[in-house]
């Protein structure tokens, strides 16, 4: 209910602003809606959204898997931590644009280069979060598992993983919001399709309704995925926690 109200306020503000600014600078909601419908009818909207989402899914999965594994290793093994730390600091502070441009130069304007570049941007934050999570593991539960001779894979699944779950969820959430942003840049610079590419084209043509049509649809999809996938997943993870009064 509150969300709907908030949305209505947003629409109203937009509409009023459009009236003042004039349709050339800020098209009103119906104009943008018409643009969305046109793009949807031609099939371009779905195709571009699909391409972007596929890139997000691939690079996100890649970065999360690799990042979690490296983070866990760095949290557990001191040597790995000392070896990996300088790289981590470098990657954390490297601007996304640099990584993307370098990837395109070295690997060509390919899909693999785009996905790898996006993944590399997300990787270090996943590593840092999982390393913290691994460092925070309860040594007492570890001892318990050893005394009771619980086999390692079972201990990992029932004792380690539940402790890491909130960190994985946090890494996923912050990672997803990072990937949403970076994927458009990568598409703008070197892919022939996707929301980022379309926004680039709209920018060159000064086609503001189309630009807004893609931006808003994309934002809506992001919001939907957050609500339908990410939030229930987080809720499921913390099911066992006693509710705060």
């Amino acid at each position, binding site marked *: 209910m509150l969300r709907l109200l908030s949305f209505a306020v947003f629409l109203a503000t937009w509409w009023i602003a459009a009236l003042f600014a004039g349709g050339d600078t800020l098209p009103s909601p119906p104009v943008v809606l018409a643009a969305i419908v046109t793009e949807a009818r031609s099939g371009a909207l779905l195709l571009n959204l699909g391409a972007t989402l596929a890139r997000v899914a691939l690079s996100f999965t890649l970065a999360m898997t690799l990042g979690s594994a490296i983070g866990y290793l760095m949290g557990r093994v001191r040597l790995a931590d000392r070896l990996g730390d300088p790289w981590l600091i470098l990657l954390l502070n490297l601007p996304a644009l640099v990584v993307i441009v370098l990837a395109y130069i070295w690997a060509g304007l390919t899909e693999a280069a785009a996905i790898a570049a996006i993944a590399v941007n997300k990787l270090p934050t996943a590593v840092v979060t999982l390393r913290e999570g691994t460092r925070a593991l309860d040594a*007492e*539960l570890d*001892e*318990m598992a*050893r*005394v*009771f*001779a*619980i086999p390692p894979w*079972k201990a990992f699944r*029932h*004792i380690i993983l*539940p402790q890491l779950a909130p960190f994985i969820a946090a890494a996923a959430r912050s990672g997803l919001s990072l990937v949403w942003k970076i994927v458009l840049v990568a598409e703008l610079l070197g892919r022939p399709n996707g929301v980022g590419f379309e926004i680039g084209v709209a920018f060159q043509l000064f086609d503001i309704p189309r630009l807004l049509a893609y931006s808003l649809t994309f934002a809506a999809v992001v919001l939907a995925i957050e609500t339908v996938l990410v939030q229930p997943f987080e809720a499921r993870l913390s099911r*066992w*926690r*006693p509710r705060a009064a």
Partner: protein
Amino acid sequence: MRLEVDIAHKAFTNAAGKRHDVLAGLNFALGHGEVGVLVGPSGCGKSTLLKILAGLDHDYEGRVSRPADARIGMVFEEPRLLPWRSVEDNVRIAAPLVDDPKLSALFAVLELDAHRSHFPGELSLGLARRVALARAFAVEPDFLILDEPLASLDDALAARLRDQIATLVDRRSVTTLLVTHDVNDAARLGDRVFLLSPGPARILAEVSIPTPRHARGGAEIAAIKADISRRIDGHRWERDAL
């Protein structure tokens, strides 16, 4: 299972590089099915000793002999349950081989039946301790280690839990080592009671209790307690340290 402990030396090195003796010249043995109770002031190295006996710490001089394949059940001072799993799951994860009748019998003795599906966060300390006990007994241990399993419980509850532990120990006749600072635990549960010195810990005196656990009445327990307390005083422990 027979347990023989002969620890010549166990020391920790602190951050400043200074060695600090925790255990020195500690030796005792327990026969099959015997309950040994170590009574000592806090900070005398009891927990360190238990870690060694549980196989968690191998960095010491001396010898601990027990069968290499001995199954160990342990109750830690803090219950150490998995907060994200139910009471029953907590027991089953540590003891995958326990069958339903055995588990039910265990839960019945420990009065946990009503709490099977509860999560540890919903339990009082006394209940959580009982779950930890259930877990330790469910693995059908050859060697049971109890680290202050009744600390910070009120007297009535502690007494009831003592009776439950006595029942379970006698049912399985498992070699047990219980560490406590409470003379009541020693008098109610021990076959042999070892009095430990303040750190570095060594054994000051040994008291054997010939009466079987199930035959000990209130008067006898009081007499044993008095005897142990007298010996403690004989060694001029500060009673406050207990």
